[in-house]
């Protein structure tokens, strides 16, 4: 499905002090940008674990945008440096998992860069529209799993994890 109907679902994980405020500014300023991003606010980009990114992909996101304060501007001093080191490792991991590099981005957006935020989202949406939707292997493995009447519990996930995973699968089937 690489046609014009495809609307990517992008999870945006934004830090409270800069990027979330930047996104807010984009809204207040009535800057137009695609509505494909679902924003989650965290206190700091240093809070973003690789697990968050992988979980978004596992539950059907087509892209993940993490955004924090510019280097040197972190409200907590060094959170965004941690985010950057993780970003490099996440990129390598995603490559090994066969996930295209366009699907994951770490950007720096300050509280007065509403324009910049809108532009980043627009670019990301158009890039992901190019490459098409992402389908997590877990979902496919579950379908292919022989002899399984009900979806099996993914090993090691807690029950509530499983429920959200199944709910994510239902959304993917829209």
């Amino acid at each position: 499905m690489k046609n014009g109907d495809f609307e990517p679902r992008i999870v945006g994980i934004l830090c409270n002090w800069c990027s979330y405020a930047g996104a807010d500014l984009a809204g207040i300023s009535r800057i137009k940008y695609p509505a494909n991003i679902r924003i989650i606010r965290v206190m700091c980009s240093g809070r973003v674990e690789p697990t968050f990114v992988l979980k978004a992909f596992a539950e059907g996101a087509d892209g993940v945008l993490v955004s924090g304060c510019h280097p040197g501007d972190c409200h907590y001093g060094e959170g965004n440096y941690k985010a950057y080191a993780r970003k490099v490792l996440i990129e390598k991991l995603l490559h090994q998992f066969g996930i295209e590099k366009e699907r994951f981005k770490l950007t720096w957006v300050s509280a007065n860069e509403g324009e910049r935020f809108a532009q980043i989202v627009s670019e990301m949406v158009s890039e992901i529209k190019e490459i098409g939707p992402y389908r997590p292997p877990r979902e496919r493995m579950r379908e292919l799993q022989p002899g399984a009447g009900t979806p099996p519990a993914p090993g090691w996930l807690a029950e509530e994890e499983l429920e959200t995973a199944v709910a994510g699968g239902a959304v993917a089937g829209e």
Partner: protein
Amino acid sequence: MSEKLKLAFYWAASCGGCDVAVLDTDEKLLEIAKIADIYFWPVAMDFKYKDIKALDKDFLDVCFFNGAVRNSEQEEIARLLREKSKLMIAFGSCACFGGIPALANLYDPEEILSWVYSGSFSTVGKNGTRPLTRVSVPEGELTLPEFYTAVYTLKDFVEVDYFLPGCPPPPELILGAVETLVSGVLPPRGSVLAPDKTVCDQCPREKQDKKVAAFRRPHEVIPDPDRCLLEQGIVCCGPGTRAGCGARCVQANMPCRGCFGPTDGVVDHGAKLAAVIATTATSKDENEAAERIGQIVDPAGTFYRFGLAASLLRGKSLKEEN
């Protein structure tokens, strides 16, 4: 306990090391034999599948199942043994979370088959002949198990009562598990029969500030035997891996490879390890951070060495789907 415990052991997609680990209990094995009868143990004793099929439901007290599930025979026996056993124990890292065999989930089944049956250097007769799952010969029909698209954990197919991780589980934990089962005071269903602490907790090395200037592979450096391996730049999975092994690898100057899986509450072992290890390489200079992380050669193979089949993504996207 008046009656003897009825046990079964099975190996699926595994190397056989878990079965050897049972023998590693040494003379204690004789004590186990005193309190238990073994009804099924393909690696050591000559029982047939039909012997198990002939048993009543829940006849066996405990089944120790090692190995991941990769083909239809393994699934069939997993379901059979589940039906015949009161307790099913995922024994070893492969049964718990896929183990080393699950690294195959980073490849398409087609890539694997073509490498094994024509590509590899040791393949004789590279004419592309592949085994069939079913073939008719004058004597009748011959069948082979079906090769699944991916490697699964035991829990993907049957209900598992307890998890006993490790590659292989150390004898002390095996004996501890048997003692627990004999005592009749059972932990909550679904428990991992190992401590809920990390390897660092059992590691005797001296730990200071975790700041890594350069990552090096174990063969590239002779580590200081008393200092934390991670602080010396050797990627060690200890900070995010469950204890219970007695930190034997790190005491032999080898980094923890993560065979005990995550502690309770961790969603994705590999991602958690990636978070920890990347954070130690933090730098204010983006290029420097990128260079340091670049020295980690194979992140998926390092952080998901044992846990890929139980991870969030569970493997690489298959080619046909994108």
